[in-house]
C-alpha cells in the first residue's frame, strides 16, 4: 500500500455547463497521481487544482465510494465504469493506468439519461420504472406471517438475491447500442418472480415495468450481451430471458 512514484496523465473530460448548454471535451494535465488512489480521488485532485487556479471544478456523481450506492456513472475510455470487470467507477484504481496515459471521461449517454452538468446525468427514469411495479404490495405494519412460514428453496433464494444486487447505476444502458434498460428491468422482475412473495402481482408487474421503460425512451433489447459484460454487479442475461418469459405469458393472460 505504499505510495510509489506518482503518474502524469492527460485527461480529456466532457464539460457542459447545464442541460441546455452545448458541451465539449476539454483537456487537462494532472501530475503526481498515486497508483493507489481511486479514479475518483484522481478527479478530486484535479478539482482541487482547478479550484486553486480559479477554474470551475468538474461535476460528477459519487457518494459511497465503495461500489454499492450506484451513484458514480462515468464513461471512461469508451466503457461504462472504465476498464476492469465487475467494478464501479469508484472501485477503479489508478494502478489500472500507466504513467503518460490519456484518459477520456464522458457521462453515460442515453436519451433517457439527459446530462444535467458535466458528467452528471439524470437517471430518474429508472426510479419511474420502479414506481410502475418494483414492489410487493404489502403493508408495512409488520403484521405479516412469520418469516419462516413460507420456505423458499435455496437455489431460488440465491438467484433472487443475485438479481436483487443491481445497484441501478445505468451502466447497462450506457453500454447498449440501443440504450435498452432491459437488464435493469429484468433484474427487478426476476427478483420478485423467483420468490413466492412476488408471484401474486407478477403479471401486472412485468407488463407495467416494461411499458414504462419504453415510455421513458429506452430502446429495445437485441441480445448483444454488452450490458452483462459491463454490469458492475455481474447481473446475468438469464434475467432478461426470464423477464421475456414472464412478459410473454403475462401478455397471453
Amino acid at each position, binding site marked *: 500500500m505504499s505510495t510509489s512514484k506518482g503518474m502524469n496523465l492527460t485527461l480529456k473530460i466532457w464539460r457542459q455547463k447545464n442541460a441546455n448548454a452545448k458541451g465539449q471535451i476539454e483537456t487537462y494535465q494532472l501530475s503526481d497521481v498515486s497508483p493507489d488512489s481511486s479514479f475518483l*480521488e484522481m478527479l478530486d485532485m484535479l478539482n*482541487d487544482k482547478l*479550484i486553486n487556479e480559479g477554474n470551475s471544478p468538474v461535476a460528477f456523481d459519487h457518494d459511497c465510494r465503495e461500489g454499492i*450506492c450506484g451513484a458514480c456513472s462515468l464513461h471512461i475510455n469508451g466503457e461504462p465504469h472504465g476498464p476492469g470487470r465487475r467494478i464501479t467507477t469508484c472501485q477503479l484504481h489508478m*494502478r489500472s493506468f500507466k504513467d503518460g496515459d490519456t484518459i477520456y471521461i464522458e457521462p453515460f449517454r442515453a436519451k433517457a439519461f439527459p446530462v444535467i452538468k458535466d458528467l452528471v446525468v439524470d437517471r430518474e427514469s429508472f*426510479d419511474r420504472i*420502479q414506481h410502475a411495479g418494483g414492489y410487493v404490495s*404489502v403493508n408495512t405494519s409488520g403484521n405479516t406471517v412469520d418469516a419462516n412460514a413460507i420456505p423458499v428453496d435455496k437455489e431460488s433464494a440465491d438467484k433472487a438475491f443475485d438479481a436483487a444486487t443491481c445497484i*441501478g447505476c445505468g451502466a447497462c444502458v450506457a453500454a447498449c447500442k440501443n440504450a435498452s434498460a432491459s437488464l435493469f428491468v429484468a433484474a427487478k422482475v426476476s427478483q420478485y418472480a423467483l420468490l413466492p412473495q412476488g408471484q401474486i402481482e407478477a403479471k401486472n408487474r412485468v407488463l407495467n415495468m416494461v411499458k414504462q421503460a419504453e415510455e421513458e425512451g429506452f430502446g429495445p433489447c437485441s441480445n448483444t450481451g454488452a450490458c452483462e459484460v459491463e454490469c458492475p454487479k455481474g447481473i446475468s442475461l438469464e434475467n432478461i430471458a426470464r423477464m421475456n418469459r414472464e412478459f410473454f405469458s403475462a401478455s397471453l393472460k
Partner: protein
Amino acid sequence: MNLDSKIPEGPLKDKWTNHKNNIRLVNPANKRNIDVIVVGTGLAGGSAAATLAELGYNVKAFCYQDSPRRAHSIAAQGGINAAKNYQGDGDSIYRLFYDTVKGGDYRSREANVYRLAEVSANIIDQCVAQGVPFARDYGGLLDNRSFGGVLVSRTFYAKGQTGQQLLLGAYSAMNRQIAKGKIKMYNRHEMLDVVKIDGKARGIIARNLVSGEIERHSAHAVVVASGGYGNVFFLSTNAMGSNVTAAWKIHKNGAFFANPCYTQIHPTCIPVHGTQQSKLTLMSESLRNDGRIWVPKKLEDAKAVREGRLKPTDIKEEDRDYYLERRYPSFGNLVPRDVASRAAKERCDAGFGVVNNDTNEGVFLDFKSAIQRYGKEEAHIKGIKNASAEEITKLGEKVIESKYGNLFDMYQQITAENPYKTPMKIYPAVHYTMGGVWVDYNLMTTVPGLYAIGEANFSDHGANRLGASALMQGLADGYFVLPYTIGDYLADDIRTGAIPTDTPEFEQAEKEVRETLEKFVNNNGNHSVDYFHKKLGRIMWDKVGMARTAEGLKEAIKEIAELREEFWKDVRVPGSIDEMNQELEKAGRVADFLELGELFARDALEREESCGGHFREEYQSEEGEAERRDEQFAYVAAYEYTGKPSEAIMHKEELNFENVELKTRSYK
C-alpha cells in the same frame, strides 16, 4: 428547560404495549389533511416515509442523492439482528435487550432498548414479505450468523449486502406510495434549515441541487432521518455526502444534541493508503467470525513486514500475537467493536503495526486457520480420504469464498493483494455515531413536531453500538415506532389545514439561508473546502479519536474554533448559487462540521470516564480496560445551543437501570 423522556409507566415488558394503547390516534379521513416532511431516505427515513404514507398522511420526502435508493444505509454489509431464536440457541427479547444495554456500556435508555428488541422480530417478517432475499439454508429457512459482543446467532443477512437489500426493500415500499401519489419525492434536494411557527416545527428550507433554487416546504411535522456525523473526521466509512447539516440546523433551532462524543470506531477497515485518500472502506464485522487478528510478537518482525522484507505468511505461529484471543479468551476475535479497536491501537502504538503508511497503523486479519478448518470439513463431507494439503486449502477457500466472496473481491480491488493467500491488513476507522439529536420515548426532539429517527438520534445504542443493530434500529424507528407515536402529536392538527409558506417565519429562514450561500460564493478565499475539511479531520482523529485526554480535548476545542474562523475568512467556493454547485454543497456541510466538532470535543471533555466508544486515557484500569464512573456519569448529556458550540448548556437526563445490573463490561 426540564428534559422529559416520557418513558411510560409500568413493567419494562409492558411499556410499549401500554403506550400504544393509550396514545391518541388520528382517524384515516383526517390523516389526508396532514402533511409530514421526512428528510433522508435511508432505512429510517425510507421506512418512515413509506409507512406514514400508507397510513394516509401526505408525505414529502427529501434526499440529496439522485434517488432515495442511494442513501448510505445501502452500504451496510453484515446483517440485521432480531430476537427470533430460530437457531434455538437461547435467544430472547430479553437477551437482545440485555446484550444491547451491556454492549452500549450502560449508557442507553432501558425502555427504548427493550422496545427495539421487542419489535425486532417483526422487522424480519416485514422484510421477507416485501421480497427481501435473505440468505437461506438448504431447507429453505432463514440462515443466521453471529456478530461481536454476543453469544448467540441472531443476525440475518444477505451475503455482504444486507443493507442494500433492506434499503431496496424500504425503497420498494416507498415506490408503491410514490406511485399512488402519497409520497412526493424530492431527489437532489438538501434541507438547509427548519422553520418554526409558534414554537412548532412547520416546514423546511431546501435547496434544489440541480437548479440551485431555494424552496419553502411546509408540513405539520418534520422528521429528520439524515444519518450520522462521522464525516466530521473527514476520513470515515460514511458516504462522501453524509453530513450533519439537517441535524445541526435543528440543533441551532432548539433541538438538544445528545452525547456527541459517542462515536464508533470500527475495527475492521482497510488502512489509509496516503494523502490522496478520500474515504475509508469497511470490511464487514462478519469476517471476525472466521478471521483471526494478529500482529508479530517481535518488533523487528513488524518492522521487516512494513519494509517489505518479510512476508506475513513466513512468520511462524509462535511468533504471532493473536492479541484479542490472548486478552479476551471467552469472546476472542468477537469482542465488541470498541474493545477490538482500542486493542489494535494499543498494539500499533507499541510499535507492532504492519502497514507502511504515515503512522504504521494496521494489523492482520488472517483466514488461514478457517480455510484449513473448512477444508478438512469439506473433505470429510465429500468422503475424500487422505486429502492433500493443497486439496484441503482449495476446498477451504471455496467455503470462504461462498461466505465472504464479495468482501474479498472488494479488498483485492482496493489493495491489489489477494486475501486468500496473504492475511488482510485492517485498522479501525470512524464508522457510526451513537450520539445525535436528543429525543424522548416518542422520538420527538425538544422542539414540538420535530422528530429524529435512525442514526440521527441518540437513543438506543448508548456509548457503543453492537454490530447489525444499526439496521435494526433504523427500520424499527421508521416502520414500527414513529408511525405510532407521531399520531399522538398530530391529533392536535386535524383542523389546522395546510400550513402556508408565505409567512414571515419562512421568509426569514429563506433569507438567512440565501445570505449564507451567497457569502460562500462571494468569499474568494485561498483554499478549497476540502483543505479545511482535511484539517478538521486531522484534529478530530488526533485529539478526539480513539483515545482522548483532557489536555488534548482542550487543545482541540481551541484549534477547531480557530480553524472555523479561518474557514469563513479564507474558503474559496467557485461558481454561483443558482446552478448545480457541488463545492457549495460541501461548503455548507463543512461549515456545520466545524461547529459540531467543537461541541463534540467539549462533550468528550465533560465526560470524565471511559465508556464504550469514548475512551479517556485518564480513566483506565491497569490492564488498559475502560473505566466507567457510574456514580457521576450515568446520564445522557443533552446540549442546548447558545451561540458558541463549546459553550452550549448541558442538560442531564439521568439513566435509571431497573432491569439490568450495572457491571464492568467483561469479555474476558
